[in-house]
């Protein structure tokens, strides 16, 4: 059976690469690949390791921090669920493998094999990225170490997903089966917390003192008997990566490979109930994905009851129906809900931090939120795509609606704009609250308040213009834009994203030049009488300029939409 699977995996990979090479004849893919390779070259190869004399202090923390990273990855798998990449079967796999004479264990083996292609690619990528770090042995040994690490994590998360699936599928019966392991897990967690409790004051003091002191305190906490024992397997997985010589690497690889083997046995020998549950879940997911036309993220079923805010009145501007539909799509997407939850938690944490201590942590939190808000101006429109970039796949449907083209463009763009603006205002609010706890913050509170108000005024317009640029690109050059909510991976996709970001930043800069000049002029005139509060009317002027530009652009793109025709193949 394994030969059949190897053949299938090999031919699939071979044909995929062949197809990717063939499509390099298209300038879109060629340019994207060149950009992607250039980026990887600059990030991974150009920044070569410094001479040995410049050995970094951080190298000694690699094993400890790496072990914590692995703990995080493992916990993520246990808490947030399945290893979808491994468990997801394509409709063709469901048709031919599930219906064929293939044992469930064979299915799991096949998916492990398929997943290896991705792990090998990731190992290569990480080897290149880590090439500039000044630790570890040769690149080849590092690549092997990374492969062992990533494969073990993948196996562990797959095993965790089997346990989780079993618990969900079989409820209390499975719980009884797992009660011993769950009790052990809980006891260990409590014991670790208890034994590390003595280190908490040192950790808190280290946090205030600086990174090195904090890491020292962390190392001391990790050296307690129980944490050391628990961390041992995680450190064992990282140790080959940090080994400085071949001999040291060879000694470190033994335990790591042993762990890998144990995980393989765990996953493969998971009892039949687990395998059946996983297979059934995969079958269901594949059917749902197939029914949705391949859309990978399943809508949450827990959010059907909508607040009155999301009720749609039957009369009024027809375009509102599209905004409503697209906002529902966001509300029902797991990622958007997680983002909203993170913002709320961030705001609460910032509020808590700002009223205690000397404000150092609050300031860091504030700057982080501010940086994200600024970055989202450029990357946000690429990230939030619940607009024409998703709906052009249903162009037939859109074209049959009784809506003028400009209404379609305006409504589709407005939905993404609203989501992005809410996210940015949330981040700015987190920053604003956090900075309240920094006594000697510069600029002072009144300046921060006026700038915050100005940002709230002008962000919707700027975001709308940015979204229009992205939607306009999708309308004018549909073959250059990836349509749909799922994102492709690989070097080409990386290059294409970078090309889009660079082109978008340039276009947005050009579009904003005149409104910004108008706003700056008004701000300078009013500064004498209003002081820093002049930024608010200046923001209003900016918004007016942006609205005027957007109106013209919407009309133009509306005409493009009305002339656009669905052609088989061009939209996919």
């Amino acid at each position, binding site marked *: 059976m394994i030969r059949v699977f190897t053949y299938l995996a090999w031919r699939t990979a071979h044909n995929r690469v062949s197809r990717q090479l063939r499509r390099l004849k298209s300038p879109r893919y060629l340019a994207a690949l060149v950009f992607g390779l250039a980026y990887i070259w600059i990030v991974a190869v150009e920044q070569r390791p410094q001479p040995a004399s410049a050995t970094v202090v951080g190298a000694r923390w690699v094993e400890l921090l790496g072990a914590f990273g692995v703990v995080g990855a493992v916990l993520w798998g246990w808490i947030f669920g399945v290893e979808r990449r491994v468990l997801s079967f394509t409709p063709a796999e469901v048709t031919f493998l599930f219906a064929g004479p293939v044992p469930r264990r064979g299915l799991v083996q096949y998916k492990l094999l398929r997943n290896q292609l991705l792990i090998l690619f990731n190992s290569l990528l990480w080897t290149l990225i880590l090439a500039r770090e000044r630790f570890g042995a040769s690149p080849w040994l590092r690549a092997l170490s990374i492969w062992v690490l990533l494969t073990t994590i993948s196996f562990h998360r797959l095993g965790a997903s089997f346990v989780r699936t079993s618990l969900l599928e079989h409820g209390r019966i499975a719980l009884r089966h797992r009660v011993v392991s769950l009790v052990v897990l809980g006891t260990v967690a409590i014991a670790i917390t208890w034994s590390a409790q003595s280190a908490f004051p040192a950790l808190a003091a280290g946090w205030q003192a600086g990174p090195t002191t904090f890491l020292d305190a962390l190392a001391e906490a990790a050296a307690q008997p129980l944490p050391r024992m628990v961390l041992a397997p995680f450190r064992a997985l990282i140790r080959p990566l940090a080994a400085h010589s071949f001999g040291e690497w060879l000694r470190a690889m033994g335990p790591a490979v042993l762990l890998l083997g144990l995980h393989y046995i765990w996953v493969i020998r998971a009892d039949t109930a687990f395998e059946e549950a996983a297979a059934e879940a995969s079958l269901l997911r594949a059917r*749902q994905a197939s029914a949705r036309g391949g859309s990978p993220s399943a809508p949450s079923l827990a959010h059907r009851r909508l607040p009155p805010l999301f009720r749609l009145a039957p*009369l009024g501007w027809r375009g509102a129906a599209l905004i409503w539909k697209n906002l*529902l799509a966001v509300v*029902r997407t797991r990622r958007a809900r997680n983002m909203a939850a993170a913002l709320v938690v961030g705001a609460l944490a910032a509020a808590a931090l700002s009223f205690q201590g000397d404000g150092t942590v609050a300031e860091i939190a504030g700057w982080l939120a501010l940086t994200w808000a600024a970055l989202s101006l450029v990357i946000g429109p690429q990230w939030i795509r619940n607009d024409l970039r998703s709906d052009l796949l249903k162009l037939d449907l859109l074209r049959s609606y009784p809506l003028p083209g400009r209404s379609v463009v305006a409504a589709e763009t407005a939905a993404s704009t609203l989501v992005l603006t809410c996210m940015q205002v949330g981040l700015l609010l987190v920053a604003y609250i956090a900075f309240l706890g920094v006594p000697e913050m510069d600029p002072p509170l009144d300046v921060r308040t006026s700038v915050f108000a100005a940002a709230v005024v002008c962000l919707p317009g700027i975001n709308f213009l940015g979204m229009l640029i992205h939607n306009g690109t999708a309308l004018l050059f549909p073959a250059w834009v990836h349509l749909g909510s799922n994102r492709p991976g690989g070097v080409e996709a990386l290059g294409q994203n970078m090309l889009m970001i660079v082109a978008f930043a340039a276009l947005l800069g050009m579009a904003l030049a005149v409104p910004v000049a108008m706003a700056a002029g008004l701000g300078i005139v009013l500064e004498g009488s209003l002081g820093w509060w002049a930024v608010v009317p200046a923001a209003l002027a900016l918004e007016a300029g942006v609205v005027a530009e957007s109106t013209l652009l919407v009309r133009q793109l509306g005409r493009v939409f009305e002339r656009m*025709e669905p052609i088989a193949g061009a939209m996919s």
Partner: protein
Amino acid sequence: MLVGRGLAVIEVEGLEKLYGDFLAVRGLSFQVQPGEVLGLVGPNGAGKTTTIRSIAGIIIPSRGEIRIGGHDLGREPVAAKSLLAFIPDEPHLFDYLTVEEHLRFMGRLYQVADVDTRIPGLLDEMELGSKRSALPGELSRGMKQKLAIACGLLHEPQALLLDEPLTGLDPVGIRRMKSTIVRRAEAGVAVILSSHLLHLVEEICTRVLIMQAGQSVAFGTIAEIVASRPALRGRRLEDVFLALITPDGPPST
């Protein structure tokens, strides 16, 4: 409000559609009166879907005019599209809207003031009452098709364009769909039905337009088409169709 009988709801004049050098539809002209069910039949690639999608306003004709309820589709697209409903063979639904939300969405698009009172009746008619909170991913192929049909019927269109509407429906669904089409036609709706199921066309269509290579090869009631070809007297639509589109006539059975 339906236009008065005798005044065509759908008027197609000299329709042509060119894809590059390929003429998909050439010089097609016909009218569909209120209450009439026009069957659009032809072999694969005959231009049926291009014709129906042109009438729906999805693709732009290279030449010719299309009027819906007297509104020119090119010049008054919103007014024209408000009067029609297009139901494709492959139901395109939104992943994140439930069954009921799809209908509310369509209600707003078509400005259906009494959407709350229409939804329960439509859901019952399409046997989707128990699925009103289901997302498309949870529906079978047939149920999705029923939902697409319900979306099309919500605003009580004057013109109904159906492209292979029975695809994916079970026998009960097919029976119900046929009665839905007939009922809507009896209420004065002009229907264009594109299908390869010739027995369906024969059963419910009042007139037939047979297409081949983008043009009309026969148009009229089945009796009129048969009457114009004495050799086909007494034959069924399937024989007439095969005689018209195959050079050697219908294959012997």
